[in-house]
Each structure stands twice: as C-alpha cells, then as structure tokens.
C-alpha cells in the first residue's frame, strides 16, 4: 500500500464539509463601494497616499508600504475616495480604511488584462522580488505575511526547496482547491517565478488527498514545468500549518522559535503563487482574490473572485442573503477563523472564506471540568500541553507559560476541538501568548 505522507505529531480529523468544492470560481459583480483597510498584513500599516475626493483607478497604489515588513495597498475599483476613517475590520480592531465609491471599471493601463498564459520569465531574481513587493502580495493562506520578506533570504542562509501549500486543511474552505483546478498553468508559472526568485531547483506542492481531482490535474501538467513535484498528503488537520507541511513533505522540523528558512525551506500558499504570476507576468497588483462563501444553511454556496474591500454582507447577499436562523458568521475556516461581530466588514487579502453557521451549529457546548484525559496533549501538533497552558492562563502565571513554550502554539484550535469537557482551551492560550509576547518585548527594551 502506498502510504500517504503526513506530519507525525498530533492532529485531528474534523468533518470536511467541502460543500462548495464543485462550484467554479465566479466573478462577483462590482459592489457600489469598497472599504480598503491600509493594514491587511502582519507588520506596519501602509502610509496613505490619497485624499478624500481623489479619483482612483483599478490597480492604482493608494497606500505605500511603511517598512520592510509591510505591504502596498492598491485600489480594487475605479471611482472617488469618499472617506478615510478608522473603521472596524473583521478582527474587531479599528483600522485606517479608505472607502471608495465605485464609478465604472477603469484599470491602470499598465495591467495586462488578457487571459493569455505567459510562460517566459524575463525578470531577474532581484526584480521579481521587487515586483512582488510593489504588487503588495502577502500570504493568501490567511497568515498575511508580506511575501517579499519570505523571498529575501537573509545572508548566511539558503533555501534548497520551495514548498507550495495546496493543503487547504480547514473544513469548508475550497478557494485554493478551485484555484488549483482552474488556474493550474498560471499557478505553475507562479511557482517557477518563486523558484527563480529563491534560486532553488525544486518545488513541492502538497495537497490533501480529499482533492484527488486537483492532485491528478496538477500532476499531469507539472510535467511541462521543470522541478515541480505534486504530493498527495493524508487528510489530517492542521497539515496546512507551515511547520506541519514542511515536516510532512521533507521531514524536517522547524526549530522552536525559528523560521522555515533555518532549515532551507520557504513555504508559499497556492493563492500566493497565483498572485505572483499575475504580478510578475501581467503587472497586476493584488487587489482581488478568491473567497469561498459557504454554510449548510445557505441557499447556494460559491467561490467568488472578489475585489478587496467588498463588504462581507455584499458577498453573503450574492449567495442569497443571511438565512433567518443564522447563529454566527465566521471569517476564515471553522477551526482557526473568527466569528464576525457584524457583516459590514470588508474582505481583505487574508480572507479565504466566509462561513455561515446555523444557530444550532454554533452553540458552544456546556463546559465541565478537566478530567485530565490527556487527549489535548496527545493531539497538539506542537507537542504542547494545552490543559496546563489553559490552567496557567486562568491563573495568570505568565512566566511559567513562557517556559511551557506557549509561543509555539500555532492557534490551530485542535485542543479545544478535541476536549471532551468542551473547555475553550485556546481562549486562555491566546491570552497567554499575547501577555508573554508583551513581557518578552518589555524585557528587550
């Protein structure tokens, strides 16, 4: 029997619920206005370049990267800047946001709008990274780490393999799946561009075995591109975690507190690789992305190509509107995503899916006491002890939490998912992580 690769420590298997897997990517009609936050990435918010009343075009830069770990922001529509305000975003924080009234659909002339596949990569490694930086590309898997930073390998370190994350292990989400099926060639060219930027000769695409169509298709076309291998992986959450994926594909472990580059690897999401193709070959900045809109109670589920800044309520309206007994709307996957306080928040570069849950599905089960069953310990993919971190978090013993490696927690939510006592373990662990980071920062100052 052919054993599928996977990571070795921990992991759970939530029901997959990929109900939108067969829905081709549709272009969402232009909204009437968009709200584009200037901080859609990890790192410093971008500096605003436009003022109220300015006319902008599709693809025009409207906020400029403010530092190395930051990313440019482009307008996703053409129209007039209506306001610049601090507005609530999907994570519940107020962020500087540029709101634009849509007028027509006029694109920057430099963008190649044809659908021709451009295979030739003309730019040099340096220029590729520069172009990616200019295009405002960030990790589209949800982590939103600026992509040019990952590609700028620090001196003394070297990448020998590029890993492409097509795992999509979160239940419900299908945007990467559709992208792999429908934009396979673009994706492959994007990967070749990334390989050139990193100067590596090998790229591995990891895809979970619940997407056999994508695996087969990419395996077939991979033959046309040098150095790209497609690997089917066992279905196990959280295999899409960067560290778990590297472990699964090349059996290397990123050291605690370290980065993939420390062990010669760089990981990019399939969505990111596609955006890289468009940026480098078509001169198109990142201003739209595929978003899955799904939920068992929605009249129709879909994968939409959405302009950044479109409100979640517009998206849900396209899928038939919020059903009556909606319990909660989650931004992201059900395991790691966050419930939205309201649906007036914009889609950002990190939005991979919007899931609508029925009130029945979204009720938290009643908590009981920890019976010390050790299930959370055995499933934690990082080898942590969630029951202990939870207890220490409740008692606010942060120095001990630091010793217990709370910062290694990838917030995958497996522990809360598995706990038979229904303890919301991750809540206190997140709190602990925030506090411990604060303590470490203050120690450095």
């Amino acid at each position: 029997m052919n054993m599928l690769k996977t990571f070795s420590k921990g992991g759970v298997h939530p029901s997959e619920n990929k109900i939108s897997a067969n829905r081709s990517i549709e272009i969402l009609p232009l909204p009437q206005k968009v709200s584009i936050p200037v901080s859609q990435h990890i790192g410093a918010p971008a500096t605003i370049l436009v003022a109220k009343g300015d006319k902008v075009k599709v693809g025009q830069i409207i906020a400029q990267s403010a530092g190395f770990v930051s990313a440019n922001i482009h307008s996703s529509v053409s129209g007039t800047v209506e306001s610049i305000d601090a507005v609530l975003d999907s994570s519940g924080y107020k962020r500087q946001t540029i709101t634009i009234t849509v007028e027509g659909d006029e694109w920057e002339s430099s963008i190649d709008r044809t659908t021709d596949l451009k295979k030739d990569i003309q730019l040099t490694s340096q220029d590729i990274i520069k172009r990616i930086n200019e295009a405002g590309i960030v990790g589209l898997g949800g982590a939103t780490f600026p992509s040019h930073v990952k590609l700028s390998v620090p001196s003394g370190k070297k990448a020998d393999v590029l890993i492409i994350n097509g795992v999509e292990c979160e239940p419900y989400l299908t945007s990467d799946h559709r992208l792999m099926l429908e934009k396979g060639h673009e994706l492959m060219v994007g990967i070749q561009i990334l390989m050139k930027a990193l100067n590596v000769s090998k790229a591995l695409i990891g895809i979970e075995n619940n997407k056999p169509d994508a695996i087969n298709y990419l395996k077939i076309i991979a033959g046309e591109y040098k150095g790209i291998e497609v690997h089917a992986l066992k279905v196990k959450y959280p295999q899409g975690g960067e560290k778990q994926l590297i472990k699964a594909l090349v059996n290397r472990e990123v050291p605690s507190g370290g980065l993939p580059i420390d062990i010669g690897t760089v990981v990019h999401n399939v969505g990111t690789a596609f955006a890289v193709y468009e940026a480098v070959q078509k001169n198109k900045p990142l201003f739209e992305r595929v978003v899955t809109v799904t939920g068992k109670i929605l009249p129709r589920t879909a994968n939409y190509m959405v302009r950044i800044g479109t409100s979640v309520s517009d998206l849900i309206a396209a899928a038939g509107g919020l059903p009556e007994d909606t319990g909660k709307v989650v931004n992201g996957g059900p395991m790691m995503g966050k419930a939205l306080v309201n649906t007036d928040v914009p889609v950002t570069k990190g939005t991979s899916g919007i899931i609508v849950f029925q009130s029945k599905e979204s009720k938290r089960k009643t908590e009981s006491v920890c019976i010390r069953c050790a299930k959370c310990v055995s499933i934690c993919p990082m080898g942590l002890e969630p029951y202990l971190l939870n207890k220490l978090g409740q008692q606010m013993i942060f120095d001990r939490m630091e010793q217990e490696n709370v910062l290694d927690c990838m917030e995958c939510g497996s522990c809360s998912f598995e706990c038979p006592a229904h303890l919301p373990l991750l809540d206190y662990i997140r709190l602990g992580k925030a506090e411990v980071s604060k303590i470490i920062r203050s120690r450095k100052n």
Partner: protein
Amino acid sequence: MFNVVLALMPAFAVSLYYFGFGALIVTLLAVGSCVIFEYLIQKYILKVTPTITDGSAIVTGLLLAFNVPSNLPWYIVVFGSLFAIGVAKMSFGGLGNNPFNPALAARVFMLISFPVQMTSWPLPVASRLQYIDAVTGPTPLAILKEGLKNGETISQMSDKIPTHMQMFMGLMGGSLGEIAAFALLIGFAWLLFTKVITWHIPVSIFTTIFVFTGILWLINPEKNADPIFHLLTGGVMIGAIFMATDYVTSPMNKAGMWIFGIGIGLLTVIIRVWGSYPEGVSFAILIMNAFVPLLNRYVKPKRFGEEVKKNG
C-alpha cells in the same frame, strides 16, 4: 464513563458466576452508596450542583466492589464507599482534582482498618449461594507466600496452586472482580477500541512485571513463581487496566505514562516478593499516583522542533 462501565461488565458477569449472591450484594451496595454519597456531599456539604450524571461515582463504586471479597460485611462496603467519595475524592475538590484513585485509596484504607474481613476470600463456585457464611480459602499469592515462609519449594506447592488455565479463567480465591484475566482483557480490548485509554500504561506494567519476575524465576524457579503466574494473580489485571489508567491520577503524556507504568510494575514485584503482604498492585499504584504531579512537571511531551534546537 459509560464505556468504562461497559468494559467492566464481563468481569462482573464472571463474578456473578463464581460468587453469586455475595458479588451481587456487594456490587449494588458499593455502586449505590458511592452515587448517593457523591450526591449528598455535593448538594449539602459543598453546595454545588451534583455531577453524578458524569458516571464517575458509578465507576468508583464498581471498582471498589471488584477489589474486595464477595463476603465483605455490608457496613464495611458502605464505609469504604464513604471514604472513597468523601475523603479520597471530594475533599480534594472532586472529579479532576483527586491525587489518588478513590477506589484504591478506599481499598487500602479498608485493608488497614478491617484486615481480617478484607482478606477472607470466598472460594469460587462453592460460595455462590452464600453471602456472609461463605466457604473461604487463600489466594494463590497467599499460598505462595505462606509456603515460601515455611521453607517449601514451588514444586512442593504445585498441587495447592491452581494451574495457569484455571487462573486465566478466574477459578481461584480473590477479590470479586479481579480474578478472571480473560474477562478483564475483554474489557481492556473494549477500552482500547473505544479509545477511552491508550495501551501505554497497562502494557508498561505488564511488561515490567513479566521481565522482572521472569529474571527472578530464571535465577531460582523453586523460590520464585513464574512470570505468567504473577500476571494472572492478584490485582495485576484489574489494577493495570482499570485503575492505573484512571485519567485523573495518571500522567498527562506518553513519556510520563511509561515511567508511571514501569514504576508500578517494579513496586508490585518488590512488594510481592520481599514485602510482608502477598499482594502489591494497590500499594504500587497509590505510591506512583503520588509521583504523578512530579512526573507532569518534569517529564514533558516531545515538543515540535525541540531536537533541532539542541543540535543547531
């Protein structure tokens, strides 16, 4: 917890077959009083919402009954239940907080307080219809201890000791639920199948006892019983499968579980061979229970990315 109750049913059926009335009365008494004490203590003394529906008191009651002779007077059973629930469990804050397995703690407490009643073992089958006036006889471990003390060799005792097959089927004196290895192993299989427990603790206990007693047996088979004898007698099976694996009082990760299991195995053999009391599993588990907080504190699961850090 329901699966644990289910896993104990084969052993219960066997105990009914061998010990009849006595087993029924003692089991019902223990389960009933454990549940009632838990309810009363939570409701009237601790003034919290009773949690008897979690089933943990039923399990404690069953295990307590399974660990005593089937002719144990009713007041000792009730007294033991009160100790198990009131002292060993609730005084530490209830489920999840007790350091010692309640049924075991109660067993040892009863053994100290009522040594005579706690060590008069009804003979299987013969005592089916009796509760109090059962026909009693020694357990294989007691025969062995007594014989060795009187200078007999194992081959001289062979006609007094049941065969391995008889022991495997439970045809020997002992506590009402601990005797039939096959029934307990069925329960073990069920617990593994339903993923209630992992194999680590029972297997490390069995292996340690087997290896340790095997070495002693190879050194001198006339003075030391063979390893299979040790595995099949006394509370090894029920202890390793049902009591050492108690979530609350066992370590939280695999490495800790191994140390815990090996510790229980070693202590069991040491107590049996060199101690003054023929049986050792209960004490061994309780002693290792005491080390669990220490194990949890210093024996950590393997962290992701930990080894690389050391090498790099």
